[in-house]
């Protein structure tokens, strides 16, 4: 199907983009990679009067190492993350996750910022940003503000972004030398929306894990961390008994919601499956 007619503008700088957005209000949509937006417009599930193309805006581009942080611009594509040396070295979780996002042609255009701004429960980047303790950098009419990933994802498809704001970049602490990670997504076919997924990092010393971060996605309305399970695993030797305790904790602390693929019970079960596989992998 073809989209309804709309106008198109391509601001060269952030202040221009923000004022265009403020002017057009709810009638405008921002377009970066457009991989979600254009599919939506093709189906006429949205009929904006104008698209504001932000792909020329310099502040939104690039992956930069800033001391002990990695700054990832909102416009960085999934393929750029997949192929980046800086990411491979300092945020290997993201490199592991990238190939799970849809298919290559979509990864070549889809963006880091777009995925975070939509906050789809099945998306990979929101879960990874939560696990890595990312800080979101947002610009709006009143200037810049920073917010943790924890506070950014509020509810189903609802982030802290106001209609007149633009997500500019995120900052992620770089991986420590003893960081281990695990990323896995269960889906019926490669590239499908995840049925359930886990993005996990920890610091490893022998078979003891500390600073654990276990984020499940496509389970709840937002990515959700298994806080109790993390507490149980932190500082303990990982053995079958610990895994059982952690799995039990994760399954009781997280309330899964059903979607068109699986019931809540099935998802609850898969939380445990993923955590068990994850813990075994993290200490191996």
């Amino acid at each position: 199907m073809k989209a309804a007619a709309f106008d198109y503008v391509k601001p060269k700088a952030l202040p221009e983009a923000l004022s265009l957005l403020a002017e057009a209000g709810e009638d405008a949509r921002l377009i970066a990679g457009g991989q979600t937006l254009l599919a939506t417009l093709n189906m006429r599930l949205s009929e904006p009067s104008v698209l504001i193309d932000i792909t020329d805006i310099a502040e939104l581009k690039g992956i930069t190492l800033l001391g002990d942080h990695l700054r990832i611009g909102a416009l960085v594509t999934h393929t750029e993350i997949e192929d980046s040396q800086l990411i491979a070295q300092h945020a290997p979780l993201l490199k592991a996750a990238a190939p799970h996002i849809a298919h290559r042609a979509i990864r070549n255009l889809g963006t880091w910022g777009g995925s975070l701004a939509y906050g789809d429960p099945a998306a990979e980047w929101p879960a990874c940003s939560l696990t890595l303790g990312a800080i979101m950098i947002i610009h709006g009419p009143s200037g810049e503000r920073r917010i943790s990933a924890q506070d950014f994802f509020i509810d189903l498809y609802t982030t802290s972004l106001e209609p007149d704001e633009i997500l500019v970049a995120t900052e992620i602490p770089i991986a420590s030398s003893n960081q281990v990670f695990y990323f896995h997504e269960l889906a019926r076919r490669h590239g499908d929306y995840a049925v359930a997924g886990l993005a996990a990092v920890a610091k490893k010393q022998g078979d003891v894990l500390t600073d654990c971060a276990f984020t499940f996605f496509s389970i709840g309305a937002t990515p959700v961390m298994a806080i109790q399970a993390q507490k149980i695993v932190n500082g303990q030797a990982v053995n079958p008994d610990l895994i059982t305790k952690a799995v039990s904790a994760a399954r009781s602390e997280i309330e899964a919601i059903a979607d068109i693929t699986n019931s809540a019970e099935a998802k609850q079960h898969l939380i445990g499956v993923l955590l068990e596989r994850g813990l075994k992998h993290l200490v191996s």
Partner: protein
Amino acid sequence: MELNGEQLIAASIPDVWKGLNDVDVLARSIPGCEEISRISPEEVHAKVMFKIGPVRARFSGKLLLSDIIPDQSCSMAFEGSGGAAGFAKGKSRVELKPAEGGTLVSYTTEASIGGKLGQIGGRLISASAKKIADDFFQKFAKELGGEAIALESDKSDQ
């Protein structure tokens, strides 16, 4: 699709009943409500812009009330058209009971969504409907000067 829930609203039953039947209160409570008008004691027409994820679909709909027992319960049949986006229809039953702290509103809903929204937006349609219902009750409770407390608590709120 089924949607059932309970909300505790810190307001008296007569106030809650009055609010649910007041189109001005509804206009301010229904998320995305653009227009609303009462055609008769049993019929309400509304235009609502639904925003879920990337979707922005404007629905024109009507609500038909029946089995009305004032200050207690009523049934509703609703249908709406979202133009190219699709259509929705269903029925709902709302009951008000006295509870400690105010009024317990319990609702059961059966709805079917068809067209593009049903196919493409269908993946998370139940979760989306639940969110819209929750948002409605939050705003509705504020209109009545009280608070809405959902009774199925979200354990993942850490």
